[in-house]
């Protein structure tokens, strides 16, 4: 395998002081959502880890995940590309095209056999391999060929992780996810439509820093960023607890920033880091902007009922299920409403 410099060596060559290196490690700990007590371990790891080769494959996708990645401020994508990784193949970002580009992919695979990372965005069509091809090669063939010598695969975005919008009903292309096809390599799912920029770069940073994949949940998502629901970390949670809900998008409750549960918020069942990591370098996230969470990091979110239907109406992908649940819901809803009113009265009395 081609020997690459460590990140520590790269920073040293750039004249970065030890103090600057400590700052780099501190912000890395923050990116990885690790406690500051991990900084010494991160420093030791970064000093010794070599820049991995990264091959990015784009299949049935809208390029939103790449757009999101290129907005990452920490680390910046330029910082990642030039300092931390060797991005050897990426349709949107690379200058090469045609045979030259494919040659670059093969060279990276041969030189880094067993040690490179494959990042995939977009779903893979199985209905007809001709639905999505690159340089005349079907997505499924390119995926199989490229992951053969990979150390790990990262499925970027909900399309690669779960099938996404191409996989939504009626799934005309027979779209499947990466994990439907790759079963003999570690796969990290980083879902979201798109994923938060910093979450994408943090996963790469984790692999770069520790040479391992992070702890994953039952859907293969890093626990660090997908271990808690939006609801768990939402700043509007106090309003939910107090029973203060916006009823329409322009009512006084909406203007006062009340909970968006009744407007369809999927925060309670959506695992992602939006509520704390936020978007646009920590500026805001959909709920803060006044729009309910769509649940875009959950499997098959496109087919789980209306975005503006509250969770209490259930999440259904068939009319029969909806009808059956409606009957049960009437009974359960009455019980829940009574309990809810009692609780609200208790809070009002105690508050």
């Amino acid at each position, binding site marked *: 395998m081609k020997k690459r410099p460590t990140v520590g060596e790269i920073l040293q060559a750039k004249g970065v002081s030890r103090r600057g290196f400590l700052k780099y490690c501190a912000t890395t700990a923050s990116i990885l959502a690790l406690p500051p007590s991990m900084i010494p371990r991160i420093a030791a790891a970064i000093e010794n880890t070599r820049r991995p080769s990264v091959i990015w494959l784009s299949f049935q996708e809208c390029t939103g995940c790449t757009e999101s990645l290129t907005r990452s401020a920490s680390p*910046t994508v330029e910082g990642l590309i030039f300092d931390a990784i060797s991005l050897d193949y990426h349709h949107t970002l690379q200058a090469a095209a045609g045979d030259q580009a494919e040659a670059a992919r093969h060279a990276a695979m041969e030189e880094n056999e067993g040690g490179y990372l494959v990042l995939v965005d977009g779903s893979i069509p199985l209905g007809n391999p001709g639905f999505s091809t690159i340089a005349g090669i079907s997505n499924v063939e390119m995926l199989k060929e490229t992951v053969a010598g990979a150390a790990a695969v990262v499925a970027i975005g909900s399309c690669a992780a779960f099938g996404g919008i191409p996989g939504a009903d009626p799934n005309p292309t027979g779209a499947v996810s990466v994990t439907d096809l790759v079963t003999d390599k570690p796969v990290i799912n980083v879902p979201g439509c798109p994923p938060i920029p910093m979450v994408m770069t943090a996963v790469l940073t984790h692999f770069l820093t520790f040479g391992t994949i992070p702890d994953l949940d039952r859907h293969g998502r890093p626990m660090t960023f997908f271990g808690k629901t939006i609801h768990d970390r939402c700043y509007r949670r106090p309003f939910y607890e107090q029973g203060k809900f916006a009823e329409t998008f322009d009512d006084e409750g909406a203007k006062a920033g009340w909970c968006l549960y009744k407007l369809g918020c999927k925060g309670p069942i959506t695992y992602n880091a939006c509520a704390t990591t936020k978007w646009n370098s920590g500026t805001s996230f959909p709920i803060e902007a006044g729009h309910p969470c769509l649940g875009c990091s959950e499997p098959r979110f496109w087919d789980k009922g209306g975005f503006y239907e509250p969770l209490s109406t259930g999440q259904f992908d068939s009319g029969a299920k909806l009808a059956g649940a409606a009957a049960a819901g009437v009974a359960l809803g009455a019980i829940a409403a009574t309990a809810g009113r009692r609780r609200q009265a208790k809070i009002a009395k105690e508050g």
Partner: protein
Amino acid sequence: MTTQQDAQAPAFPFHGNVRPILNEVLHAVDRLLDTNEATVIDLAGLPFGPGELEHLEATLGTGELSARLDALGTSRIRETAYPGVWWLEHRNAHDEIVGRYLEITRTPEILSSQDADILAGRARLEDQFE
């Protein structure tokens, strides 16, 4: 039951996420005094409603000492109006914020000169004599 009539323009900020942090700082100050143990609170992992982070910063205020670090972008380190409670803000080379911390300590580690840098500086100083 709370109704729309109860909604009104909020006293700003009003989400209640600042008070628990101040309480955590208070406990960290006690730990510093009792055992000399430092605490670092990463503000990136905490939920803030609109204006709450600014409210936290304004509440902690500014003390006697401020420092600027120019390494991989600018960082600002200042003691707040509460001695031992430091506000650290790291920016990258594009002036984008990449980290915000509260450190409850006598002196943040990053303010100390590092051995590797001292050794490198000594070598450069020695070159002055050649």
